[in-house]
């Protein structure tokens, strides 16, 4: 049966809560309302208010309480209603959750999941459009994932719940209802770490993740049809730790790399990916490593301005053509 990205997340929550009594959900409006986007719909009825907890509007509280529960053996799945406000819990995440195992010499762990609906392209303006992943991808002790498909959304969330480390799970709001997929029956997981080659190619590697993955695939199809270019599309899926082998393999194969993400250019993960390639695959490069990313500004409310700021299929197509011709 075709399942949306949103439904895939919802299924993963249901299944994990059924599988393990220690799993519980906590966040703003996750219970009675079923979540601002209806991601947690049905959980309250199925599992009761002890395991589906509505909280006050305080991200620091949600994460702080979650850390405490995790230390004591629970497996909290915490929701930031909008990923934009994850910064309110920044200290709890980077100084407490991420360091816990280290501080205790490996004797303690913090198995929590932080779900962060993120991303732009939904006319949400600057406080409801952010892609905050890069704040966290330089923090040891965390894992960061950003699924692009319903299959990965479900499989990665299950892996995140079962992981003994704090995992930040960025789910792209634009994908909630726009992507659908037939999912296999029964339990399956997607491992944290490996990237996925979405399209095999020859002329150029397009490395991407999250919402931009679909634009990248569309762009690859366009240039294949119109220019005869075979673009290889690598979906990172996990942003921390990065799948260096997959990144280097595709870079070495094609010699030309374009990185596309919706996060801003400066300090985005693309810079790190580019550095890995420059450092370890330099002798294979046949052109500059290029990036398509959001402009270094805030996401505008005005739709034409938002369009101007964000990457899209056309911008990726243009960048592919430029790099291919180089």
């Amino acid at each position, binding site marked *: 049966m075709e399942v949306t990205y949103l439904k895939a997340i919802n299924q993963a929550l249901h299944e994990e809560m059924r599988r393990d009594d220690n799993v519980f959900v906590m966040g703003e409006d996750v219970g009675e309302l079923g979540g601002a986007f209806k991601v947690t719909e049905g959980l309250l009825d199925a599992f009761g208010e002890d395991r589906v907890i509505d909280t006050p509007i305080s991200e620091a509280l949600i994460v702080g309480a979650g850390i405490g529960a995790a230390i004591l053996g629970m497996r909290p799945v915490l929701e930031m209603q909008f990923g934009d406000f994850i910064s309110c819990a920044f200290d709890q995440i980077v100084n407490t959750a991420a360091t816990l195992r280290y501080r205790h010499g490996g004797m303690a762990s913090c198995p929590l999941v932080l779900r962060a609906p993120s991303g732009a392209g939904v006319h949400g303006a600057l406080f409801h459009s952010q892609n905050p992943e890069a704040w966290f991808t330089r923090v040891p002790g965390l894992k960061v994932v950003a699924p692009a498909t319903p299959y990965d959304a479900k499989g990665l969330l299950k892996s995140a719940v079962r992981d003994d480390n704090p995992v930040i799970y960025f789910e792209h709001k634009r994908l909630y209802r726009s992507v659908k997929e037939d999912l296999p029956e029964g339990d399956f997981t997607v491992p944290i770490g490996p990237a996925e080659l979405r399209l095999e190619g020859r002329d150029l590697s397009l490395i991407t993740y999250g919402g931009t993955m679909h634009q990248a695939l569309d762009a690859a199809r366009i240039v294949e049809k119109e220019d005869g270019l075979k673009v290889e599309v690598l979906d990172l899926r996990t942003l921390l730790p990065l799948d260096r082998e997959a990144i280097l393999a595709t870079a070495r194969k094609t*010699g030309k790399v374009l990185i596309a993400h919706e996060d801003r250019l400066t300090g985005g993960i693309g810079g790190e990916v580019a550095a890995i390639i420059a450092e370890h695959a*330099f*002798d*294979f*490069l*046949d*052109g500059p490593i290029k990036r398509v990313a959001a402009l270094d500004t805030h996401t505008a409310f005005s739709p034409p301005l938002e369009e*101007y700021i964000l990457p899209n299929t056309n*911008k990726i197509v*243009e*960048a592919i*053509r*430029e*790099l291919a*011709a*180089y």
Partner: protein
Amino acid sequence: MSIEVMMPQMGESVVEGTVTKWLVKEGDRVQEDQPLCEISTDKVDTEIPSPGAGVIAKLIAAEGETLPVGAPLAVIEASGAATGAASAAPVAAAAPAGVRTQPKAAPALPPAPGKATAAGAPPAARPQQPPPTLRAVRTEPRPQAAAAQSASQAPAGGASAPSAGGSGGAAATAGSAAAAAPPRGAQAPGAPGGVAAGAHRRYSPVVIRIAEEHGIDLTRVPGTGIGGRVSKRDVLAYLDALQAGQIQPPTASSGAASGVTNGATNAANAQEAPQGAPVTAAQPSAGGAARPSAVPVVLPGAPGYRPPVYEPREGDIVEPFTRRRKLIAEHMVYSKTHSPHVGTLAEVDLTRVMRLRDQHKDAFFAREGFALTLLPLAAAATVRALKEFRRMNASVVGDSLIVRHQINLGIAMDTEEGLLVPVIKAAEGLSVVGLAREIERLRRKIAEKKITADDLAGGSFTLTNPGREGNLFGFAIINQPQVGILRMGEIKKRPVVVEVDGEDAIAIRTMMYLALSYDHRVIDGVLGNRFLYRVARILEEGDFEL
């Protein structure tokens, strides 16, 4: 606001050009489209029109300098109108690849070719439709030209000699430039066609790695990337061709590029700079350039043979190869060393077809405005025979014979600068009159120096007619990668034996020898003979619509 004039892309396969003559000087006021300089490439000669109105701020390229496509030639300080238009160009589009702006330049970059033209910053040679990626607006001249100029004035280094007087001087100066091997801007010794060794010959890491692994001299690899850049694909294609034996690996005759110091090669390259200017050998001490063969050259395929050392004698004239001559020479040597030629000869009785021509020539001239010659008739016979013998209309590519579907008939034509072979495309669809018109059109284009690289590309078979006088017959060298070439001989009246009413008789007939050279790698004797016989018979029968 400055406009940079760049070496235009003058055809798909053209990667570089030589500035043969500047038509303006620094400080001159120029109008848009006013010719700025003459450019010569391996395929065409053309004038570069000014991309905008303004004052010539700087001539970057020197006369005689060979530069890759996209290299800066001159800077024009644009006048008011152009500046305004450029500033008005929209900001939105991302800069296309290859467009280089200085940080302080106007942020506006024309997103579309049409806008670029309006902005007064089109590419140098608009008629040739260069790709939009080469259009550029720049505010500063590159330092490269200065480097090149100072290099050519620098002390002569290894080839140092007291400044030579007389006409030997130019060659000596150029010799210095090559011998001194300055890091930027000057000619790369040994690079075919003298590709500049400067910014435009940087290679990506993967290209360098592949070249090192396989010992490839990158200056020999044609580039298809932006501005003639050599991409990974280019070097891999070159490697394939090398391994398939289609390309001769570099030998000592081009050894300077691979680090072998070879006086003769340096000298030969140096002479490319003052292109076309014959130099007398009266000053043999004027530097390496005046002694092209001072050091023996190892010939490809003949490692044991050394041509005798040239001793300059007063009155000798040293005529440096022009760029086109060099390429012709390379092509001829390539063809002779790669494809075993077989020559076969047919006798053609032209009496009937010449009579046909005589009957129609006045009406033809009145109708078409040019004379009807035997050439279009021979071309028609060739095309007709090629339709029957498809394998003669073919190319050798690697280990394959590629039988070409379309008949693109090359017609060799003599020009002031050397032989050119313009191509009649899709000749299979043309009548004799159509072929005649095409030949005339191409001939005129050559005469007017308007022939384009595309006119010369894509031939699948060649016909040559090297003049009727004193040429009984001869065998032409195959135009690679084609598999055969027909050469017309002298048309002469001769007594021949003919059969009249079952009796042999001697008659005076208009005769011509028609010679076919074919590539014996792919064409066997039976096919070659049958094809030639067929052309001869078609021509003899003279069954042409005029």
